[in-house]
């Protein structure tokens, strides 16, 4: 059983506390509350795993706060990072009238 940490009850991601390989069982802990899920792909130490299915445009929540929006649907157990999340702040690319790349 691999370990991951949840920072707030509202979070939909957990942070891997060790390298997790695809197919391994993960124990995502918030205080005394533990949720078990299966990693559907490799989650390196410090990276985030989705705790639920997240639809495109939905906010990713860590520390109980929005850290960005899903740029594509993310299934439970998958890696959450720049390939499927975009920031909502400091988007000069959008402010200039451009589209999200």
């Amino acid at each position, binding site marked *: 059983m691999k370990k991951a940490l949840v920072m707030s009850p509202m979070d939909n991601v957990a942070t891997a506390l060790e390298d997790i390989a695809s197919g391994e069982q993960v124990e995502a802990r918030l205080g005394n509350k533990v949720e078990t899920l299966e990693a559907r792909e490799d989650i390196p130490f410090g990276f985030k795993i989705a705790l639920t299915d997240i639809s495109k445009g939905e906010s990713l929540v860590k520390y109980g706060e929005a*850290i960005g929006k899903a740029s594509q649907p993310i299934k439970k157990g998958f890696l959450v990072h720049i390939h499927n999340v975009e920031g909502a702040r400091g988007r000069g690319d959008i402010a200039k009238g451009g589209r999200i790349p």
Partner: protein
Amino acid sequence: MTFLGYERPDGSYGARNYVLVIPSSIIADEICHFVAGTRTIVTPMDATSGRSKSDRETIARVYVGLGLNPNVASVLLTPGGGAGGAQYPETAIEKLASEIERSGKRVEVLDIGKGDTMEIIGRGVKLAREMVHEASKLRRKPCPENHLCVGVKCGNSDPTSGIAGNPVVGYVYDKLVEAGGTALFGENTEIIGAEHILARRAVNNTVAQEILKVALETEERAKSIGQDVRTINPVPANIRAGITTLEEKSLGAIYKAGTKSIQGVLDYAERPEGRGLYFMDNWAWTFSIFIGYAAAGAQIVLYQLGGGGLEEDAVFYQTGSTVAPLIWCSANPRTQVLGGWNLDFYSGTVIEGKETVEEVGERLYATILDVASGTMTRTETLNHIDPNEVYTRDPVF
């Protein structure tokens, strides 16, 4: 609790006992090469040339603030670029000298007199040696911890920073503020996405609005260049270590500020009027942020390092603080292995489940008092002093 400090005429207590040689120039640098116990700020020789009034005031604030820093026993002002004749009024040597003299410290202005640069350096070396010798007669004595002022930067952040490293610093900041000390945090880009949380902790609505304004203005500057800020900050090392967006980085970063109310927003290198927790509107860069904290009065600075994106340990040789000792901390087990002896403090036992944030925080607090009392930080064992860049904001002409 107490630490052993050097009492200054203005009632402050230093953790070190340096003779500061400013402004930066070949003359200041060479004096410091020759004379033990001296420090200088290493910037380009003529740091003010072609800069706006506002930026020249910032540079002057750094020079004066470093002179006023409790870790400085006395100050030797030397001719810099353009000196000996025409100077901008904001950084004129006589003006800098009179502002530092108000602290009651010994302040000397090196007479340019006759002779070439080497002869001026020679006179400066003689004077600096005498000043260092005089400063060495002072003895440390116990002083209350409420005289301490600490500044922090979290850098090379990774997910261990938000989970453990910054919360440990936050515990220390709460303890220091409760004891009546002063705690400085900052990094105007790295509050974007978390500014609403900080604003709720402001001591009053004015300060809350100032915090929100810093975040908004920084974000507007970022947007004005027409790029996604994520291509700039989080920096590649953050992303490689698992931080996905600027918001995520910011939300982890603010843990270092603990939980106390924020007493005010300081401009870069501005001294706080009171004690307690303050936010400084500064740039996160190592070679800029620490001199800003030291100029605001910090005797000790902390570098809370993630390090998950590091490939080797070279980063530990950065000293970046001029007069305030730099304590390197990290909560990343891998960084501890990479850094080895170079790392001053390891807080990763929180992640390993061996210690609580409170237990590690107590150890870090004790480490800070130790360093304030004279124990060297690992980088202090090097003669190396990094070049510094004052955080200026206007275009140059």
